[in-house]
């Protein structure tokens, strides 16, 4: 009897996803995304700004941005097997490029007050705004600047990749970590303060809350929608990449480098491709993060930020895109919202002595230890979440119950 149960649960004996299932999953995903987008617009504009919605907006925005950052890291660490820790450095470059390009001309004197108003004296969003009106100018200008930010990061990654990608495993991690720290130091250097504003903040650039469409007396805020849109597009692009023959080559390199080379896969070229693409999306994520934060400072992009993202990837499951997305939203929600009360000193209205600043991090560490010990493959392992998969799980669960009951009856 129990042998039968085992067979029903053995993942290697699952039936293949047929075309029908694929179509169902696609439709289910579309419906889910449509609901999310409608909800995002309602959240920004219609729903009353009380306690919950006030927290939900930043959590959803940051969660979406982190989902992209995690998926981009997963492409490199999970699918290509390159253990790189340069994420924060690439995000920093992306965020800075975006911010520098969109600071309005009038604000330059205030932002670059120690550097005579800075070197660049133009703003891409303003240039487009003059032609298309402020809303379209902001949206299109922001999209163009985000793409430029991604491209600049990709070029940096290609240059760094030439020496670094010849290293393996831990050495690659150390080298990329080092480069990220170097980037952070350079961006704070006063010598290029005319561009980066030295170690000071960059601010007043186009942020998510500037994406407001004025129709008559109506003001429609597209902040959350915009973040979700860019993130969705990028993640879809990464998924298409993973499912293409390039993606297969990445996985082959991860599984066995020598064998992959013997198949005719050019190791360096494919590693470089994965590194550059992952960095491009890290740059896009950095630009979105800058938009979300409304101010950006190089000092904040420490290696701890990279570890945070790595942690989410591990929690979600190395090699699972949907796992990274789920884990990103959960992590951000816990970190920014659900576990905040631990730092407040109160449980409800009762004062609790050991609930003080930083206690949240202690609880976090415990949760992480539990996950690493008992769910070492993360939430999703290397599987993907799908609608039909979920249905099958529920069916299996019901079957198992039925089988168990039958077994018990037999035993009697």
């Amino acid at each position, binding site marked *: 009897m129990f042998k039968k149960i085992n067979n029903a649960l053995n993942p290697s004996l699952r039936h293949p996803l047929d075309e029908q299932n694929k179509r169902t999953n696609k439709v289910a995903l579309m419906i889910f995304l449509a609901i999310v987008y409608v909800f995002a617009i309602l959240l920004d504009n219609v729903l009353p700004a009380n306690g919950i919605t006030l927290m939900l907006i930043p959590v959803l925005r940051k969660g979406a941005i982190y989902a992209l950052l995690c998926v981009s890291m997963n492409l490199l660490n999970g699918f290509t097997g390159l253990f790189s820790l340069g994420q924060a450095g690439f995000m920093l470059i992306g965020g800075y490029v975006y911010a520098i390009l969109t600071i309005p001309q009038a604000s330059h004197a205030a932002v670059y007050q120690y550097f005579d108003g800075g070197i660049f004296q133009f703003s891409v969003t303003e240039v487009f705004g003059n032609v298309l009106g402020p809303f379209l100018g902001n949206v299109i200008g922001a999209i163009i600047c985000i793409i430029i930010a991604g491209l600049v990061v990709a070029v940096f990654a290609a240059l760094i990749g030439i020496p670094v990608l010849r290293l393996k495993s831990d050495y690659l991690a150390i080298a990329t970590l080092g480069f990220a720290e170097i980037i952070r130091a350079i961006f704070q250097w006063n010598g290029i303060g005319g561009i980066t504003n030295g170690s000071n903040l960059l601010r007043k650039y186009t942020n998510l809350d500037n994406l407001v469409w004025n129709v008559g007396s109506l003001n429609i805020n597209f902040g959350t929608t915009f973040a979700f849109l860019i993130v969705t597009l990028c993640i879809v692009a990464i998924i298409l990449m993973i499912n293409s023959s390039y993606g297969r080559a990445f*996985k*082959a390199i991860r599984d*066995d480098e020598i064998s992959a080379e013997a198949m005719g896969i050019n190791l360096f070229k494919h590693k470089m491709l994965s590194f550059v693409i992952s960095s491009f999306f890290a740059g896009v994520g950095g630009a979105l993060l800058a938009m979300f934060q409304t101010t950006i400072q190089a000092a904040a992009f420490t290696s701890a930020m990279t570890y945070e993202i790595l942690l989410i990837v591990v929690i979600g499951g190395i090699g699972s895109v949907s796992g990274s997305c789920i884990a990103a939203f959960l992590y951000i929600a816990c970190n920014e919202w659900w576990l905040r009360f631990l730092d407040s000193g109160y449980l409800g209205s009762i004062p609790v002595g050991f609930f003080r600043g930083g206690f949240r991090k202690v609880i976090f560490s415990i949760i992480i230890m539990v996950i690493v010990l008992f769910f070492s493959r993360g939430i999703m392992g290397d599987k993907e979440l799908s609608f039909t998969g979920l249905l099958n799980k529920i069916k299996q669960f019901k079957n198992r119950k039925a089988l168990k009951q039958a077994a018990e009856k037999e035993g009697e």
Partner: protein
Amino acid sequence: MSNILEIKDLKVNYGGIEAVKGVSFDVEEGEIITLIGSNGAGKSTILNTIVGLVKAASGNVIFQGQDITNKDTNYIVSNGITLVPEGRKIFPDMSVLENLKIGAYMRNDDLSKDIEWVYSLFPRLKERSWQLGGTLSGGEQQMLAVGRALMSRPKLMMMDEPSLGLAPIIVRDIFSIIKEINNQGVTILLVEQNANMALKTASKAYVLETGNITMTGSGEELLHNEAIREAYLGT
């Protein structure tokens, strides 16, 4: 018969050690050729050098009249040489079908016919097509490694110890399939420690000892050679 592959005075070094010390041999088109020898004789090194994974110190590798010495592996593979690596080395976290598709990575045309061909040679793989490579048994993994190599539609297939770590009955199956593949027009260069099986299968054999070829002959001749029997067949 013309030679599909000619090795001329090939020398390969690992660090300071000369692993292959001036080896020359030919592979005739449409035949099964075997290199036998003990551990450390340089058999695997020769195969790795031919496919470009290891660079030669001197000498030439000539494939269909073209010098391919020290060319990039992807160039060599797309020209029609493929290697079934020692110890199988399938991709454990990819499905059987994905493994096969990776084998055809250098090709841009339609693969469905070749996948059908491989499945007809190894019906077992078709049953397991959605299973992860790492969950297959040793014999099935060897079948997958051979199938994966065939996906590049090779003219010359080089096999490094296909019998390694397999039960005798599975070894027999593998060798009968090697013959079948050969009948369908693929030249085979076989490296083996299991000299008995290799010599029975091969039309021509070379004996390799510490980087030099010490004996040549047809498989049948070497099978009955006293020295060979003593050294490799243990009788």
